[in-house]
């Protein structure tokens, strides 16, 4: 059984690495097409926004603490807080909110 689990791990690691490595190694030149360039320029913003909301709301044990963390993080980020500061600010908000709820 143990060896079979390692085989499973090998298969999943292989597939996941291929997904990550193929575009990065196959697309080695600058893309000139303006629409395609614009598309790739917008991709990170859209992906990260879609991944953050509403998933953040179900990440904690209380929806209210998550909502508070979301708002605090947006304010901190808007004011130019570093990655670390915003992340810790969100964590602290959850911790404090859940102490009082």
């Amino acid at each position, binding site marked *: 059984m*143990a060896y079979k*689990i*390692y085989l*499973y*791990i090998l*298969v*999943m690691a292989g*597939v*996941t*690495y291929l*997904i*990550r490595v*193929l*575009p*990065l*190694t196959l*697309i*080695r030149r*600058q893309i000139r097409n*303006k*629409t395609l360039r*614009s*598309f*790739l*320029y*917008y*991709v*990170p*913003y*859209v*992906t*990260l*926004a*879609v*991944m*953050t*909301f*509403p*998933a953040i709301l179900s990440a*904690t*044990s209380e929806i209210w*603490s998550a909502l508070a*963390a*979301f708002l605090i*993080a*947006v304010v901190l*980020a*808007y004011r130019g807080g570093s*990655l*670390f*500061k*915003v*992340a*810790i600010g*969100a*964590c602290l908000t*959850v*911790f404090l909110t*859940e*102490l009082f709820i």
Partner: protein
Amino acid sequence: MKKSVFLKGMKDGVPIALGYIAVAFTLGIAAKNAGLSALQSTVMSVTNTTSAGEFAALGLITSGATFLEMAATQLIINLRYCLMSCALSQRLDHKAPFWHRLLIAFGITDEIFGVSICADTPLSPLYTYGVMSIAIPGWAFGTFLGTVSGSLLPARLLSALSVALYGMFIAVIIPPCKKNRVIAVLITVSMAVSAAFSYLPVLDQISSGFRIIILTVMISGIAAVLFPIDEKEEAKNNGI
């Protein structure tokens, strides 16, 4: 100079590692329930570094799925990394040695991608290596801890730490909104549509992995056609 880029990466890796420890901890607990040893779950985390993919894999291992099913599931769940890899391909210096691409590919997770795309263009591989050197051990360590002892971290602390990653995403996408209206609108629309897809009947049947891919392609595609950017503007808005 080179050293400082690597150190900057390590510093940005710290909040990622904190969030990873929280998420990986719960993954470790699930791994233990699925019958994996601490060594097995840690090896899985080091070689895969993908939370959704690993959670799904545990379910498949428990049910004794075939290797083909495992491969197909990973392909579907992790397909979003393909889009991220495409976007990153345009940020790297195309004259840099090829092997950097092989190593950086290993580090394409939602979070490491998020901070890398935010760094100066062309992206220095050293920056991403710095992030990976802190974040990936955090992921592995969290998995190990969760498997060995499911009750080591109090629930309150886990709950607080689990928003660290989202906080980071917000820190990456919000600042550019101040300079660029299109991006501000784009982010608002993305979040609203994502919420609709999560809560509305029928649409809520779509898995989160597919939701991310469908919405990214759709919304970025529409934005690219409506608001094409020229290279000057792209250079000006550097850092994501």
